[in-house]
């Protein structure tokens, strides 16, 4: 049987340990839990990665078109890839400067790039010359761009 002093010491010790554990948990959550639950990605870094991925996809798409050796196919590719490249160049410039206006224009530039690449992908697929690598690159680009694309729809009222 514990004496009154013993009980008091025991309850005080429990209180101190409890407070320590609570404060420790709060401190650790302040340091790490919020980051683990909602990883923040720098928008510019994501934009840069998206443009680089789309550039790789564009290059491989253009090379695949050239590899067919067919001028008619190349002409069709040109119709898709020219606007895509123009948009990609402007998107890259936007990432380089990354002003408020750049950030506003960026989503719809990506949408234009994706459209051109998707059309080229469909064309090459129909000709049975779409490689898995190119298909995956375009898909990767689309996945990355998907973080920005909804803003394009919002900006043009869904008409773009």
């Amino acid at each position, binding site marked *: 049987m514990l004496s009154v002093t013993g009980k008091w*010491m025991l309850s005080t010790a429990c209180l101190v340990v409890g407070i320590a554990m609570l404060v420790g948990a709060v401190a650790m959550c*302040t*340091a790490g839990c919020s980051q683990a639950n909602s990883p923040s990605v720098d928008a510019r870094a994501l934009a*840069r990665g998206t443009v680089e991925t789309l550039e790789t996809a564009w*290059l491989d798409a*253009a090379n695949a078109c050239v590899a067919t050796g067919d001028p008619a196919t190349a002409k069709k590719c040109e119709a898709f890839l020219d606007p895509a*490249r123009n948009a990609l160049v402007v998107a890259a410039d936007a990432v380089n400067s990354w002003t408020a206006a750049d950030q506003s224009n960026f989503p719809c530039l990506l949408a234009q790039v994706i459209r051109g690449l998707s059309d080229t992908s469909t064309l090459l697929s129909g000709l049975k010359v779409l490689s898995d690598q190119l298909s995956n690159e375009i898909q990767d680009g689309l996945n990355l761009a998907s973080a920005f694309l909804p803003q394009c729809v919002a900006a043009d009222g869904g008409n773009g």
Partner: protein
Amino acid sequence: MNPALWLQIISAAISDFPELLQGIKDIIAAVEGQAPAAAQQPPLTVQQDTQAADDKLHALANS
């Protein structure tokens, strides 16, 4: 053990706790503060990078 000594130990733990907490906060702040700032990335050069492939595509399309 002497209850007075226990009391002293517990009091010391309580009184030191804010200091301990502050130490943890300082470490967190130091880690965050010492994290290297995002390295200045070289500019993207899509136009130059894609020029050769674009030229080939146009050459074939117009052949």
